[in-house]
């Protein structure tokens, strides 16, 4: 993955930059010792790393503002960072950048159960947001699989999803307001504890903008009452086509499961060897989870089972207890770990129209043969959000490049069938140079024009999202 050539003038001016930041911020806020900045050299896309010039870890919005103002004045690029769990390289540094980490800002600022909102500092982890309200029977719905570690700031930057977004939506559907610091240090409030922010939908622009428009330090989030219960049913089929048809029929029937997860044979076998969850050895496995009271779950199960049987399943297992539910979920939740046991892997997240599932799975199988790399598929089938895991050997020369080339082919395939490059992980650096497959030059131009409005100097996370060639003129002009 290519990165821009770092600005030598900034690197050589490090002492001056650090001195100004240190002078303006409380002790312990600025890290500039190379031994310590190394800890910030990469995020979840660990194949790419580069230690930043310095790291700032502010404790307040005012400190974020002061830091950004200085970086703005000195034209230093800033890469915002939540918990550093991005799989797309959203927080990958450059040698001439300052990392602005929000991890020390974790406070709950307000809980209003009657209005069903919580306001938090955005360094708080996703799971800790639910943790702040669950004793009252509420939860925060978006649940990316990294939810134990990932920060709300990163969730907002990447518009994160999760397994349950089929019913509850992704971050943008649950974000009501933000306090955002612009690159020049201006602090602004958008939206709040009400369902529609006024004026143009700036919240929608900010959510998913990958830290390129501003640094969100506080967020007002919707919280929801916890359902009475939830139970899954496991369905096995001998063909991906049939499993895909079953998914489509369930959705059409009016059942709104919270999750429909799909695993293919390579993934089932890897998982069984690893976690021994008792899955059948079949071509495609579905886990469908529904919510409600015991009777409501049974009512929905009856409909789902009737549809499932129509498609002649090889396995049909409905959970009647928490133990059985845990067993059904065990394999799914171990899937990434199981694939990881088999080697290094790259996880993609292209999204496709549900109707294209069988075709796309078949093509991925063919690409696997062509490239000689194994692929397991485990994904959110209800909304067509694929997660092909391509296995490779990071120590073998050329394998990473081969894996990336195959990944690119899969993502192009997703776009060709009417889908998109990324459903929930974001573009980052990983899919940056594939953007031209989804968007025409003018479609990218208008998006970059949006960044011009928020960050005219192109200092915030400048080397992300847009193909380097497309953004070059703006980044150079800004220097």
């Amino acid at each position, binding site marked *: 993955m290519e990165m821009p050539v770092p600005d030598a003038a900034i690197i050589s001016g490090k002492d001056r930059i650090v001195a100004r930041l240190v002078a303006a911020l409380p002790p312990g806020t600025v890290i500039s010792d190379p031994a310590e900045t190394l800890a910030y050299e990469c995020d979840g896309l660990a194949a790419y790393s580069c230690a930043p010039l310095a790291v700032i870890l502010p404790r307040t919005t005012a400190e974020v503002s002061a830091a950004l103002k200085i970086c703005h004045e000195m034209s230093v690029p800033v890469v915002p960072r939540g918990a550093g769990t991005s799989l797309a390289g959203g927080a990958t540094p450059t040698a001439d950048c300052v990392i602005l980490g929000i991890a020390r800002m974790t406070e709950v600022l307000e809980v209003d159960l*009657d209005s*069903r909102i919580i306001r938090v500092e955005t360094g708080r982890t996703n799971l800790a947001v639910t943790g702040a309200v669950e004793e009252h029977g*509420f939860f925060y719905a978006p649940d990316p699989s990294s939810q134990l570690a990932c920060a709300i700031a990163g969730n907002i930057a990447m518009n994160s*999803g999760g397994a349950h977004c089929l019913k509850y939506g*992704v971050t*943008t559907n649950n974000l009501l307001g933000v306090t955002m610091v612009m690159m020049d240090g*201006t*602090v*602004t409030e958008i939206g709040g*504890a*009400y*369902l*529609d922010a*006024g*004026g*143009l*939908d*700036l919240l929608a*622009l900010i959510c*998913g903008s990958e830290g390129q428009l501003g640094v969100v330090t506080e967020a007002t989030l919707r919280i929801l*009452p916890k*359902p009475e219960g939830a139970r899954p049913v496991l369905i096995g089929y001998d063909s991906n086509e049939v499993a895909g048809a079953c998914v*489509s029929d369930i*959705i*059409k029937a*009016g059942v*709104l499961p919270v999750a429909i997860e799909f695993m293919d044979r390579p993934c089932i076998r890897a998982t069984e060897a690893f976690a021994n969850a008792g899955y059948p050895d079949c071509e495609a496995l579905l886990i469908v989870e529904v919510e409600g009271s015991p*009777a*409501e779950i049974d*009512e*929905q199960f009856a*409909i789902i089972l009737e549809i499932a049987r129509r498609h002649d399943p090889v396995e049909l297992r409905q959970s009647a207890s928490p133990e059985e539910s845990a067993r059904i979920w065990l394999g799914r939740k171990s899937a990434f770990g199981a694939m990881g046991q088999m080697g290094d892997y790259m996880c993609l997240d292209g*999204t*496709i*129209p*549900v*109707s294209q599932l069988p075709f796309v799975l078949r093509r991925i199988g063919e690409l696997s043969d062509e490239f000689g790399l194994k692929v397991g598929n485990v994904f959110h089938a209800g*909304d*067509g*959000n694929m997660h092909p895991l391509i296995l490779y050997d990071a120590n073998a020369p050329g394998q990473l490049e081969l894996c990336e080339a195959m990944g690119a082919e899969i993502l192009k395939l997703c776009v060709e069938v*009417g*889908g*998109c*490059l*990324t*459903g*929930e*992980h*974001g*573009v980052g650096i990983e899919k940056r140079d594939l*953007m031209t497959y989804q968007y025409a030059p*003018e*479609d990218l131009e*208008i*998006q970059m024009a*949006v960044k*011009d*409005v*928020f960050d005219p100097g192109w200092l915030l996370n400048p080397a992300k*999202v847009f193909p380097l060639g497309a953004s070059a003129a703006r980044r150079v002009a800004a220097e």
Partner: protein
Amino acid sequence: MRPETEAELAHMIADATGPLRIVGGGTRSFGAGAGEALSTAGLSGVTLYEPGALTLVVRAGTPLAEVEDVLAAEGQRLAFEPMDHRSLLGTSGAPTIGGMVAANVSGPRRIAVGACRDFLLGVRFVDGMGRVLKNGGRVMKNVTGYDLTRLMAGSYGTLGVISEVSLKVLPIPRACLTLALDGLDDARAVAALSRALGSPYEVSGAAHLAAGHKHTMIRLEGFDASVAYRAEQMRALLAEFGDWQLEEDCTVWQEIRDVTALQGGGDVWRVSARPTDGPMLAARATGADVVYDWGGGLIWLRVPVGTDVRAALGDFAGHATLVRAAPEVKARLGMFHPATPPVAAIEAGLRARFDPRGILNPGLMTPREGAA
């Protein structure tokens, strides 16, 4: 002007020499001022509908009623329950998909499933320079690049003229029940609605008509046994407020959706606020007729002609939109709530990029500068 294709639309905008007034069905004419009318009516028709994938792609000028018929034939619908503005605004004509999206029109079910913008998967539009642009697509999850799709929802035609949209649709539930109770004052009613919305029983409507019988309503939808079960649980949960009646006829929600209680004379304001602030805010608008939706978070106020409701409300978290008033009142008070200086600057910057010549519905959303 009435383009028949997206390409024609692009040419017309590129060649325009003065302001354009974008018109869909003309039912939500919120007071767009001068300019040559540009109708999207010629851009009509469903281009793709996959019931099994819950996706619909439709051109902007397609009448909403036509879309609803197509969906109903497959047992599906636009779940965000778009309001029909005709009775409130006294307009005629047929609402279009483009107008609905441009104004981000939602209804009572917004509290449960989201707004129009939450169901918008992708958009094609022509900007103020005549460039044909697209964003998003037709899949449920998409974080590829910036979300200009939702930006277009609620931009009232000021950033571009929408030519085609993709929408997520949902199945129509088999059963619907309404719990209703008369006589609660505003604060008690909102307290009851908060309790209901904080329960696990999946409320899809929570409204209170403050005038007359002081009618409070809670809607439950889903499968038969489930709805019946939740209704009983809810009656027990809310027993301290009174003896809630169960009504199987859910058509009353159309009246909430369209705010029919406030049709006729007077100005109508739409206030978006923290739900528990609703009664306090409504009280500040002394003498107003009040309809609460969204559990108290959406407050419709009918006030005497020319009343400055924003001045009456004072400083609060939320915003007030002047939906129905004579042009001179709208000109004096402004339709949209003033923005803070940083937000106004961002909005002005976006307009300058999307419509550098300032010809698309000029003045409809601006000025918003000035207030804090």
